């Protein structure tokens, strides 16, 4: 169990800063998800915490101790790698036993057997123990990789997109299992992903990383409903948030070349803005305000995602699957004024 703190940490590769003045505070026993697009510096952050890279600047603390001088083996954190974490010439059992046989831990054989049995039961890999790891399916491999981490009973778990190579179904079930595991072990988890659904569904807290910098940290609710800027708003949510230019004046916001006019909160300053609205906050139906051309309809079972067009502006709305919608037809829609997001037109920062 441990509290992890990064204070203004910078790591450069050549001139390029992969992690740039990163400050992060992960509470003991928290499931923290680091979410960011590819190349954001997620892996680098984990490697810095694990001790595989040394920061050029800044401080890293694990359990309130500065670990700068500590080698990777002394830090007592487990790292589940994005790729290649298992040794192909070992069996699953040997892979699980490997961390326990190090001088740092020096477990007795009885204890090794016991820990492996316990981990195998938790991850339901008991039947695979004697198999070589190159004979495992992707999902089984991921479980064993996670198993290699949990047998150690480390102070913290660092996981680098452990579910990324799995099919959707398996990913969903492992997601639930991991979350359950964390609740059971009550240890600190730092989970890295570029999949926003994974982040939102698993994290107690989510940190959004972009170009080596933390953009926003918050609960999934905060990230989704109070995005700090356009980057965060468009990174989370599927389909992604609709963004369009608008004009704020005298308590009204005007968009879609004047066709749409909504009452805006008084506090907003006048001027050009970018408004954002999520598809589920657009209502489609015969009794709504503004007419739009139906450009495309995707059937998702429970609901339909309909792409609407007003003049040159496209946006997506969610409609109940019972609603009859024809491509190239017309339909009326309205925006839920309470769910409107306002961003600065120039900087993209939230104007909340």
């Amino acid at each position, binding site marked *: 169990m441990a509290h992890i703190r990064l204070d203004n940490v910078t790591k450069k590769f050549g001139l390029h800063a992969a992690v740039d003045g990163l400050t992060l505070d992960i509470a003991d026993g928290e499931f923290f998800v680091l979410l960011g697009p590819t190349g954001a510096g997620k892996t680098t952050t984990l490697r810095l915490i*694990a*001790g*595989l890279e040394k920061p050029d600047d800044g401080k890293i603390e694990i359990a309130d101790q500065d670990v700068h001088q500590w*080698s*990777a*083996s002394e*830090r007592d*954190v*487990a*790292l589940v*790698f994005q*790729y*290649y*974490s298992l*040794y*192909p*010439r070992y069996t699953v059992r040997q892979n699980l036993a*490997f*961390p326990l046989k*190090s*001088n*740092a*831990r020096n477990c007795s054989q009885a204890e090794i057997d016991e820990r492996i049995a316990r981990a195998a039961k938790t991850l339901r890999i008991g039947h695979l123990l004697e198999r070589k790891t*190159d004979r495992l399916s992707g999902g089984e491999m991921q479980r064993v990789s996670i198993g*290699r981490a949990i047998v*150690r009973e480390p102070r913290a778990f660092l996981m680098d997109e452990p579910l990324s190579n799995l099919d959707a179904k398996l990913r969903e079930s492992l997601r639930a299992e991991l979350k359950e595991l964390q609740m059971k072990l009550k240890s600190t988890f730092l989970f890295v992903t570029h999949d926003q659904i994974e982040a939102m569904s698993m994290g107690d807290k989510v940190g959004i990383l972009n170009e080596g910098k933390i953009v926003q940290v918050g609960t999934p609710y905060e990230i989704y409903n109070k995005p700090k800027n356009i980057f965060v708003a468009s990174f989370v949510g599927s389909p992604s948030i609709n963004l369009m230019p608008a004009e704020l004046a005298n308590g009204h916001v005007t968009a879609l070349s004047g066709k749409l006019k909504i009452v805006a909160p008084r506090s907003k300053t006048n001027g050009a803005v970018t408004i954002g609205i999520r598809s589920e906050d657009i209502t489609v139906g015969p009794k709504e305000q503004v007419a739009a051309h139906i450009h495309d309809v995707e059937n998702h079972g429970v609901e339909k995602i309909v792409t609407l067009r007003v003049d040159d502006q496209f946006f997506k709305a969610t409609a109940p699957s019972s609603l009859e919608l024809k491509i190239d037809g017309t339909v009326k829609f309205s925006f839920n004024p309470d769910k409107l997001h306002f961003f600065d037109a120039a900087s993209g920062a939230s104007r909340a």
Partner: protein
Amino acid sequence: MAVVTSSRKKAFNRVAIVSILLITLIFLSPLYWIGTTAFKPRSLATTVPPTVLFQPEITPFIKLLTKRVQLTKAYDPAIYAASPWYEQRIYDGGERILRVGPNIQLSQYPNRFMNSLIIAIISTIIAVSMGTITAYGFSRFKMAGEADLLFFVLSTRMLPPIVVAIPMYLMYRVVGLNDTHIGLIILYTAFNLSFSVWLMKGFMDEIPKEYEEAALVDGYTRLQAFFKIVLPEAVTGIAATAVFCFITAWNEYAFALMMTNRRAQTAPPFIPSQIGSGLTDWTVIASGTFLFLLPVAIFTFALRKHLLRGVTFGAIRK
């Protein structure tokens, strides 16, 4: 149209197969000569056309391994009957094995063969271990001038070795390494090292660095991770490199000829030195060559499983 192409293709295939067979035959004919002559009676060794069917015998090998002298006295059936079978074979040829007291005198061949083994094995072990460690360093750690250093390592192979033979000879004479095992071991190690570094670097690059990093995070030191994880993964590369180094060291002729003459002489310069001016016994030469070919064949055969993956130089990924 399709028919024409396919029949043309077939004809081409036939021609290709026949030419390959022919080339193979030409390449294998010296081997055939060695393999058969080593077991022929002396009288059949140089017949024209070559004798294909004959009763193979072991006499050339007995001659190869022993010191012999011409019989000076007349053939004596009593001595013949009292001799062991291998001496009888020599007796048949009008010679006897030289003895000092009761001890059979061995020829120089076993000694030269041992020299070859010692020098080739030790220099291979050193070249491969040094190459493995160096390649690991190059592969895993960033260092200033990495590419230049690697190129420098390679550049030691650019000069034809024979160019440096004379200066090397003079230097060796000064430091007293002439005709010593250590002298040749150093020479062959140096000669193989650049090759070993480059080959091993390719194999090391193929091993994901995550393997060791996982071990580091799991509480192992870098050295432990190297021995426990990297070495077993690199075994294919090590085997391939070892075979190449061994073959180079085993077959080397020019330096061995120049740098050694007695104590540390290896088999390659020794075998041709046995070809006299007049009455050369080709069966003995052939048997010497035959034995000389065996270690490389055995070594390569023993490591064939690794070589099959190794010689593709990592073209096949796991």
